[in-house]
C-alpha cells in the first residue's frame, strides 16, 4: 500500500490541540484510515486526551471513551463485552495509550485483558516518556536519556515490552514507527482482520520531549530504525518476522548505523556530548544495542 492509495477519509479532524510535529497525530491519522469509522476508542490519560481537544468539542470523528490512566485495557474489555452481548462483530475496539499507560501503570490491566483473550487492538504510541505531564521518565525511556526525573540521564535500560506481550502468546503483535506509515497501515489492517487480542507499539519521536526541531519527527523515527535502536517486526502464530529496514539489518543486507547518529540530534542526550564526550555511556548504549541484535539473530534469523 503506497501513501497515495491510503483511504482519503479523515476521522482525525482539523483543529486539534497537539504540539507542532507531534508523532501521535501522525499515528492517529494512519490508525483511523486503517481501522475506519466502525470503531470505538478507549483512551486513558496520555497526550491524546489533550489532542482530542476541549469538551464539548472533539477532533476525533469516532466514539471515544476517556478512562483513567491504568484502565485502558480493562475499560476496553467492558466495551468489547457489551458489543459481543449485542452480537456486534463488526465494530473494532481500540485501546489507544501512551508508554506510561502501557509499560508502567496500565501493564496489569493490559496483561489481564490479553490473558482473557479480549477481542481488541491495544495500541501503544511510545514516545519514551511521560510527555503529557512534562517529560518524566517511564519504563520505556532509554538509558542515559535526560528527563525531568532523570536530570543526569536515566541509569537503567528500557523494558522490553514486546517480549512481555509475546509471552502471552497473543494472536498478533507488532512494532511500527510513525516514520513508516505504509508499514504501520498494513499492520493495523492485519490486526483488524484477526480475532482476539492484538498489540501494536508505535515509536513516536516527540520533539519537545526528545528535544529536537519539530520538522525532524520522521527523521528521528527513520534513524531509530536504521541504528537498530527500534525494530519493526510482526509476531504471529508464535513467530517473529522482521520488516522493512529491520529485516534488511537482520539479514545482513544493510549495516546498522552507529547509534550516535540517532542520539546526537536529540537534546535529551546532549550531556553525552557536552561539555565533553561521555565515551563510557555512549559505549554502553551501543553495546546494549549490539547485544540485543546478537539475541535477535539467534532467535529470529
Amino acid at each position, binding site marked *: 500500500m503506497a501513501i497515495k492509495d491510503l483511504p482519503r477519509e479523515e476521522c482525525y479532524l482539523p483543529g486539534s*490541540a497537539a504540539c507542532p510535529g507531534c508523532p501521535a497525530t501522525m499515528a492517529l491519522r494512519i490508525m483511523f484510515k486503517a481501522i475506519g*469509522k*466502525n*470503531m*470505538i476508542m*478507549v483512551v486513558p490519560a496520555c497526550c491524546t*486526551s*489533550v489532542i*482530542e*481537544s*476541549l*469538551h*464539548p468539542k*472533539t477532533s*476525533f*470523528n*469516532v*466514539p*471515544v*471513551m*476517556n*478512562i*483513567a490512566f*491504568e*484502565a485502558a*485495557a*480493562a*475499560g*476496553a*474489555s*467492558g*466495551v*468489547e*463485552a*457489551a*458489543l*459481543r*452481548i*449485542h452480537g456486534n462483530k463488526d*465494530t473494532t475496539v481500540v485501546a489507544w495509550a501512551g508508554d506510561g499507560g502501557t509499560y508502567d501503570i496500565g501493564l*496489569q*490491566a493490559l*496483561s*489481564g485483558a490479553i*490473558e*482473557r483473550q479480549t477481542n481488541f487492538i491495544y495500541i501503544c504510541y511510545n514516545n519514551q516518556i511521560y510527555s503529557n505531564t512534562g517529560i518524566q521518565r517511564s519504563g520505556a525511556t532509554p538509558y542515559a536519556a535526560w528527563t525531568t526525573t532523570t536530570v543526569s540521564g536515566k541509569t537503567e535500560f528500557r523494558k522490553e515490552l514486546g517480549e512481555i506481550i509475546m509471552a502471552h502468546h497473543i494472536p498478533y503483535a507488532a512494532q511500527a514507527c510513525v516514520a513508516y506509515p505504509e508499514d504501520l497501515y498494513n499492520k493495523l489492517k492485519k490486526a483488524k482482520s484477526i480475532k482476539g487480542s492484538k498489540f501494536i507499539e508505535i515509536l513516536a519521536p516527540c520533539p519537545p520531549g526528545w528535544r529536537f526541531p519539530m520538522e525532524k519527527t520522521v527523521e528521528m523515527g527513520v534513524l531509530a530504525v536504521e541504528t537498530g535502536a527500534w525494530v519493526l517486526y510482526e509476531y504471529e502464530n508464535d513467530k517473529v518476522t522482521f520488516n522493512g529496514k529491520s529485516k534488511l539489518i537482520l539479514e545482513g543486507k544493510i549495516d546498522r548505523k552507529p547509534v550516535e547518529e540517532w542520539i546526537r540530534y536529540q537534546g535529551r542526550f546532549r550531556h553525552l556530548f557536552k561539555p565533553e564526550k561521555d565515551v563510557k555511556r555512549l559505549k554502553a548504549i551501543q553495546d546494549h544495542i549490539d547485544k540485543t541484535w546478537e539475541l535477535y539473530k539467534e532467535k529470529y534469523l
Partner: protein
Amino acid sequence: MSSVMIDTGNYIAAKAAVMARPDVVAAYPITPQTTLVEGIANYRDTGEFKGEYICVESEHSAMSACIGASAAGVRTFTGTSSHGLLLMHEMLHWAALARLPIVMCNINRVVGPGWNIWADENDSVSQRDTGWIQFYCSSNQEIFDTVIQAFKLAEHEKISLPVMISYNAFILSHTSMPVYIPEQEEVDDFIPKRKPLWKLDVDNPITFGNIILPHEYEKVRRDMQNAQEYAKKLIVEINRDWERRFGRYHGDLLDLYKCDDAEYILVAMGAIGSESKVTVDNMRKEGYKIGLARLRVFRPFPGEEIVKLGDKADLIVIDRNVSIGLGGAVFNEVKASLYGKSDAKVYGYIAGLGGKDVTYGDIEKMCKKVVDGKAKHMEWYGFEKGGV
C-alpha cells in the same frame, strides 16, 4: 407468584443480580464477597445468567470494565468488599462522574492492617463522596429487593448514577434466611431493558470525558447533586411501587420503628440497625419510650427526615465506622442535618469496629446510659472500666 429460597446473603444477591438480567458482570473475588461472584459464575454455567462474565485481574479493572460496558449502553453489575472497594476508589468517582448506572454489592468488611474479614462499615462509608447512591441492608430479603430496585433507580433518566448496596460481612453475607423470590416476568416488568441516555455509538460518535473547563465541570458536579436530591423522592416512589406489586416494604430512606411517641430514637445502619429492633422491643416492655430509625440510605443523606425525628425526640446514633479525627460518620451527619433546625440532643457511640459483636443487650446499655443522663456527647462503647 413467588417462591421461597433459603440461602445466604451473597447467594441471594447473586440470584437478584441475575434476575435483573445484566448484560455484563465484571468481578474479582475477595473474602467475604467470593460466594456472590461464585454464585453468578454458577448461574452462567447453568444458563440462567446469559450475559458476559468478565473475570478481571483486579477490582480496579472490574469497575473499569463495568464503566466500559455501561458506556457502551448495557446493564452492568459487580460486587466487592473492603480492600477491593478501596482499590476501585478512583473508578467509583469515574463511574459517577460519567453518570453510568452501574449496580454493585459491597460486603462491609474491615480494612487492614491487620488482616480481618469481619463486619465493619468503614470501607463503604469512606466512599461517601464518590457520587454513588448508598443503601445499607439488614436482611437477605432486603438485599434481594434492593438489588432489583437499585437498577430501576440507577437507570432512571433523572438519576443516571451508580448504586452501591452494602451489607455486613458474614452477619448477612454468610447467613441463610428464607427469601421470597418473584417470578422472572415480574422482575422484567419492574425493570425493563435499560434505555441509556448516551452511549458509545459508531453512528453518533461523541468523545466522552475529554478536557473540561472549570465552569462546565462545576455544572457536572451540580447536576450530580441535583440527581441525588431527586433520588430521595424517587426511592420512596420505587418503594411504593414495589410494595404494591410484591407486598414488601423495608422502609424508605429511613426504616422507622415505634417512633411515633418516642422520646429517644436510635439511628443505626446495617446489622446494628436490625439488632436495635430487639432492643427497642425489650425497652418498650420496661416502659421506655424509645424508637428506631434504621438508616437504609446513606447517600443521599436523609437530612429532612432526620430533622422530623429531632422535632420530637433526642437521637442516639451508633456508628460501625469512624472518620478518624472527627468521630462516627452518621453521628456527625445527623448533627449537621439538625443544625439550626432542631433543639434535639444527639448522642453518638462508636461500636462494633473490627467485627466486634454488638448485641441487643449492648445497644440497651448504650440507650439506658443516655436516658440516665450519664452518656457523654460521643464515646467508644465498651472501653470504660467495667463496661458502660
